[in-house]
C-alpha cells in the first residue's frame, strides 16, 4: 500500500522532492500576488509581463555569449524584461492616454518575438522550451533561496500595508482622497507581480504562468469573503496543485508543467459547477 511512498523516498528521486519543496515555498508569493492579479483584474498585464520575460532572457543570453558580458544571466534578463513590461503597461494604464489592452497586446507579442530573435542569433545550445514550458525538475538550491527571498519581499510589506492595499484595491480614488499613495502601491504591486512571474517561469514555464497566477485565486474567490482569506486559501491551493501535479506527472509519466495546470483547471471547473448548484 505504501509502495508509492517508499518509491518517492528513494534517493534517486531527490529532484522530485526538490521540485515539491519549491512548489510549497513558492506558494505564499503565488497566492498573495495571484489574489491581487485576479482582484485587480491585471491578469493580461501579467501575461504580457511573462512573455516579455522571454525577451529579457533572449537579450541576456545574447549579451552573455556574443558580447561576453558575464553578469548577464538569463534570470537577470527575465527579471529585467518582466519588470520593464509590467511598469510600461502599468504607467500607460494610469495615464490612460492609450488603449490599455492594445498596449498589452503589443508588449506581449513584441517581448516574445524579440526573445526568439535574440535566441536565434545566440550561438550554442539554448533550452528555450524550458522557459516556455517550465523545468521545475531541474531546480537548484539557489532557486530555493531566491524563492524564500521573494516570499519575504511579498509578505513583509503585506503585513504592514494590508489595510492600505485593501483600500486601494477596492476603491483607489477614495483611498487616494484619504491620503494613501495609490500609484506607489500599484507600481509596487506590478513589480512584485513581475518578480513572481520570473520565479514561476521555472515552475510551469511562461505559457502557463497566467494559469498558476489566476486559477488558485479564482477558486479561492468563490468561497472567501475577505481579501486576506482569499490570499490564504490560494496559497494553500497553489501548494497543493504543484505537489499533486508533480505526483501526477511522475506516476503517469506526464510533463510536469501541463500536469499542474490541468489539475488546477479541473478543480476550478469543479468549483464553478459546485457553486452553480449551490446557488440554484
Amino acid at each position, binding site marked *: 500500500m505504501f509502495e508509492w511512498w517508499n518509491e518517492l523516498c528513494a534517493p534517486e528521486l531527490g529532484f522530485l522532492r526538490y521540485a515539491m519543496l519549491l512548489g510549497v515555498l513558492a506558494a505564499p508569493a503565488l497566492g498573495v500576488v495571484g489574489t491581487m492579479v485576479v482582484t485587480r483584474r491585471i491578469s493580461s498585464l501579467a501575461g504580457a509581463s511573462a512573455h516579455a520575460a522571454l525577451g529579457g532572457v533572449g537579450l541576456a543570453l545574447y549579451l552573455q555569449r556574443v558580447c561576453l558580458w558575464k553578469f548577464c544571466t538569463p534570470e537577470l534578463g527575465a527579471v529585467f524584461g518582466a519588470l520593464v513590461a509590467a511598469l510600461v503597461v502599468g504607467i500607460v494604464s494610469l495615464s490612460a492616454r492609450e488603449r490599455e489592452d492594445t498596449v498589452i497586446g503589443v508588449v506581449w507579442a513584441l517581448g516574445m518575438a524579440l526573445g526568439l530573435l535574440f535566441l536565434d542569433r545566440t550561438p550554442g545550445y539554448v533550452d528555450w522550451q524550458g522557459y516556455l514550458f517550465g523545468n521545475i525538475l531541474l531546480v537548484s538550491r539557489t532557486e530555493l533561496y531566491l524563492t524564500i527571498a521573494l516570499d519575504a519581499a511579498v509578505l513583509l510589506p503585506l503585513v504592514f500595508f*494590508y489595510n492600505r492595499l485593501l483600500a486601494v484595491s477596492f476603491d483607489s480614488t477614495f483611498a487616494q482622497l484619504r491620503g494613501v499613495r495609490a500609484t506607489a502601491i500599484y507600481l509596487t504591486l506590478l513589480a512584485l507581480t513581475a518578480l513572481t512571474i520570473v520565479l514561476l517561469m521555472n515552475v510551469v514555464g511562461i505559457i502557463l504562468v497566467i494559469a498558476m497566477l489566476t486559477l488558485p485565486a479564482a477558486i479561492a474567490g468563490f468561497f472567501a469573503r475577505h481579501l486576506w482569506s482569499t490570499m490564504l486559501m490560494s496559497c494553500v491551493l497553489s501548494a497543493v496543485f504543484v505537489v499533486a501535479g508533480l505526483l501526477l506527472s511522475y506516476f503517469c509519466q506526464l510533463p510536469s508543467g501541463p500536469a499542474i495546470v490541468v489539475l488546477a483547471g479541473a478543480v476550478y471547473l469543479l468549483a464553478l459547477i459546485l457553486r452553480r448548484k449551490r446557488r440554484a
Partner: protein
Amino acid sequence: MTPIIELENVDFGYVPGELTLEQVNLTVNSGESGCIVGPNGGGKSTLLKLFLGLVQPTRGKVRLFGGSPEAGRRRVGYMPQYHLLDRVFPITVFEVVLTGRMTSWLPFWYSGADRRAAHRALEEIGMVRLADRPFSSLSGGQRQRVLIARALACEPELLLLDEPTANIDPGAEEQFYGLLDELRKRMTVLTVSHDLGFVNREVDSVICVNRRVVKHRAADFSAETADAVYHHHVGLIQHDHSCFCHCGDKHHV
C-alpha cells in the same frame, strides 16, 4: 460664513480644445447645503473631481477649505456612484466602511476608535445588521448606502454625494431623505442628482451644471417673492428638462 469651496474662472477639459466646464465661478459656504443638477454629461461629476483635486483645472483656481484641494480633501466625505466599483471584490460591509478611517499616517492597523466610528456610521445609515455580509451580496441601493456610511466614517466637514438616490430601494427613500436633513444640520452637504424631486427638499442652493455653472439661491426666491415664484421655479426645474440647460447657458431662471 467661511467659504469651503471656491472656484475662480475655472476651465476644464479632458481633451485639449474641448471644455467640459467653462468659466466656472462658484463659492460654497460652510453649513450651506446644495444640490447640483444638470443633464447627463453636463459636467456634474467632473465638478466634484475638481473640488477634490482629482483632476486639475486647465485654467483658473480651485480652493478647498481655503487651501489646495489636495490639502483639504481629508476633511471631505466623498461617495462615488457604486457601479464604478468592482462588483465581486472580496470585502465585507464593515471593511468597506473602515476604509473611511484610512489616513496617510495610519499606523498599519485600525484602532478601536476607528472601529467604533465605522460602527456609528453604519448605525446612522441603518445597516449595522449587514456589517459582516460580503459587499458583493448586497443590492444596488444597499451598496450605495454602505458607501454613504463610509463617507460618514471620515467624520467629514463637507459631504459630497454623487447620485445618492439613483438606486435607492423604494421603501428606503423617505428614510434616506430624513437622514440627509439630519446631516445638513451637522455639515455642509452637496448632492449631485438628476432626480429633480431632490430640489424640493430643504436645500439652500441649487447649482445648475451644463458646461457652465450657475448657482441659484433657493432662499432668494422664497424671501423676495411669494411662494408662488418659488414653486414656479422648482416646478420649472422639475418638469422641464430643458430648463436647466437653459439656465446653465443663459444665467437665467
